[in-house]
């Protein structure tokens, strides 16, 4: 019997994977590139939130937008200096350069923020409430709610706005979109800004649960990418659902088997799904013109 505690814990963690997976999705559909430093960006968001809210005492309504702004700026930097130069040369070296950026960022934070983890004391969201004999942190309701809202907003953006339609056009055929007068370069920058802002948001959401440290984002970033692949990186709902599912799956495995099995079965599941569904559970087969 799986307890409600276990399910809720998995749901909250999975929602973080889902948010980051959406970040991977956004840049991939627009530019065919992935920002592998999103895990480090999640950490950056958590650290910035700690600095602004806990250390400087800024109100949460000021600190949160500032963190989103800083995280978004990080996306601009990544796109301009770590992705664009390589794409212009038709190279896939952006893969390595974004990983390198993540390592650089992690070490800069290690030097400036410090080596030790710190906690963000937020009693209003970090003290558990009781529900059906289970203890649940209010933040664990907030995280999936934010994830679902973001996915919904992205869906509405793509269906109901000009920017969204431009994004879809650029995703479907970049050259045709350029001929239609769509500024694809700006759309790619926007995609990177949105994806890193999402990672910053995920960092702020998980910080009260996990504590803040320079190394906090690496494994989360990796698992989120696994979720994006499982869900189908071209599908926003797929990324979110797979992220949540991956978190719940991990939690259930840990409840039933020794914890070492969690990573074995989690990544094993990824391989099995890819064997049978190479484009992920919700992904569509790509069209290649020859």
């Amino acid at each position: 019997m799986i307890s409600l505690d276990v399910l809720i814990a998995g749901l909250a963690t999975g929602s973080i994977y889902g948010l980051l997976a959406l970040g991977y999705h956004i840049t991939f559909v627009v530019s065919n590139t992935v920002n592998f430093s999103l895990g480090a960006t999640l950490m950056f968001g958590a650290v910035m939130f700690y600095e602004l809210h806990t250390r400087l005492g800024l109100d949460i309504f000021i600190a949160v937008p500032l963190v989103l702004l800083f995280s978004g700026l990080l996306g601009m930097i990544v796109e301009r200096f770590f992705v664009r130069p390589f794409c212009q040369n038709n190279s896939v070296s952006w893969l390595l350069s974004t990983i390198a950026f993540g390592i650089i960022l992690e070490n800069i934070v290690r030097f400036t923020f410090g080596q030790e983890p710190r906690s963000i004391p937020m009693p209003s969201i970090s003290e558990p409430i009781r529900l059906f004999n289970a203890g649940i942190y209010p933040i664990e309701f907030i995280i999936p709610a934010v994830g679902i809202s973001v996915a919904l907003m992205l869906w509405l953006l793509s269906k109901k706005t000009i920017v969204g339609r431009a994004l879809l056009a650029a995703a479907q055929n970049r050259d045709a979109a350029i001929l239609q007068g769509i500024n694809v370069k700006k759309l790619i920058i926007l995609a990177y800004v949105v994806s890193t802002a999402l990672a910053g948001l995920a960092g702020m959401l998980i910080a009260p649960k996990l504590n803040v440290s320079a190394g906090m984002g690496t494994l989360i970033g990796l698992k989120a990418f696994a979720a994006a692949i499982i869900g189908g990186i071209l599908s926003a709902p797929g990324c979110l659902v797979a992220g949540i599912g991956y978190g719940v799956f991990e939690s259930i495995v840990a409840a039933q088997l020794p914890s070492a099995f969690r990573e074995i079965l989690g990544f094993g599941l990824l391989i099995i799904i890819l064997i049978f569904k190479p484009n992920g559970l919700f992904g569509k087969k790509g069209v290649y013109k020859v």
Partner: protein
Amino acid sequence: MKLTPTQYLGSLLLPLVFLSTPTSAQEQVKIGLVAALSGDSALSGESITRGMTVAIDEINAKGGVLGGKKLVLVRRDDESNPAKGQLAARELIEKEKVAVVFGGIDTPVSMSLINVMSELKTPYMGVWAAGTGITNNNKNPNYMFRVSAVDERVDAGMLKYAQDKFKSKRPGSMLVNNPWGDSNMKGLEKAAAALNITLAGQEKYNVNDIDTTAQLTRLKNAGADSIILVGNTGVAAQVMKSMERMNWNVPVVSHWGISGGRFDELAGPRYKDVVFVQTYSFFGKQSPVGDKVIAELKKRYPEIKGVNDIVAPVGTANAYDATMLTALAINKAGSTNGEKIREAYYDLPEYKGLIKTYKKPFSAESQDALTDRDYIWVHFVGNAAVPVN
């Protein structure tokens, strides 16, 4: 061959250069430290450094070792990573020529150094990591020494404490998933059999775990009436958060990994309920050595206003005594030769230290200077580890 004036001058100066380098090197004796200086347990590395530094300066003020040579500390960060620890130890021995390598909080790192120290014939002095197998390693000759707690003895102590103080009949353990956890798993099984206690279960958790509700739920369902906790600060804090989430208020008796960081800050409101083991406390009436060390720490580190501010105190205390014993061993050996120092550890004169008076602290049968009689039980009051009444 005819030399130019420059070559001639060079040929005269070259031997002087070679002669002068060893002379300056010989004026000092280096001791290495391989410990976590970053990451979750960075404070442990800092506290060890402080204990060693205070001791080294005291030794140097009295004339150093080997008839006037200064002791010098050379540190390397192992980042709690066994591979990095091995590289650091090799570099310290082969390049820096340290006489002895001191170790830090992480049992996996210390375990990984057993073969390195044997191969390079250099003594290792553990001042924190408590893994039983670090010193009890079947090596002959054995280069691993320790002034610290030993898991097997701590495990028996933790179970006994839970039994006596909390009337626990079915303790369950939460162990970090690494060699340190394995060491304690064996120790707890052995101790439970000796104390006639039935363990409710032994659960492992990973160092990156965000939540340990699943493992704790299994222990709860198995009827655990106390938790024996083994892990370093960061991940052990996640266990306490998960217990708080479950509203599961059984007593927690912990090994001392939690005292190597900011457990009071990271673990949430239940941090103060955890009782854990230490080898020394700066609280209460001190010996003259204790008063001297506290005064030195206050003088050197302005943030230390009182004993409350001495963070991770066992690191400082163990390192202080271990450095003093090592200086005695170097003098006894009359050399920085690793084999001679190793033999000298077995033949130390009586030494009145911080933790206790050491009389023949090491022998070939036991390379651990501290016994279970040297353990005390503490809990956090603020960020200070204060003895429980």
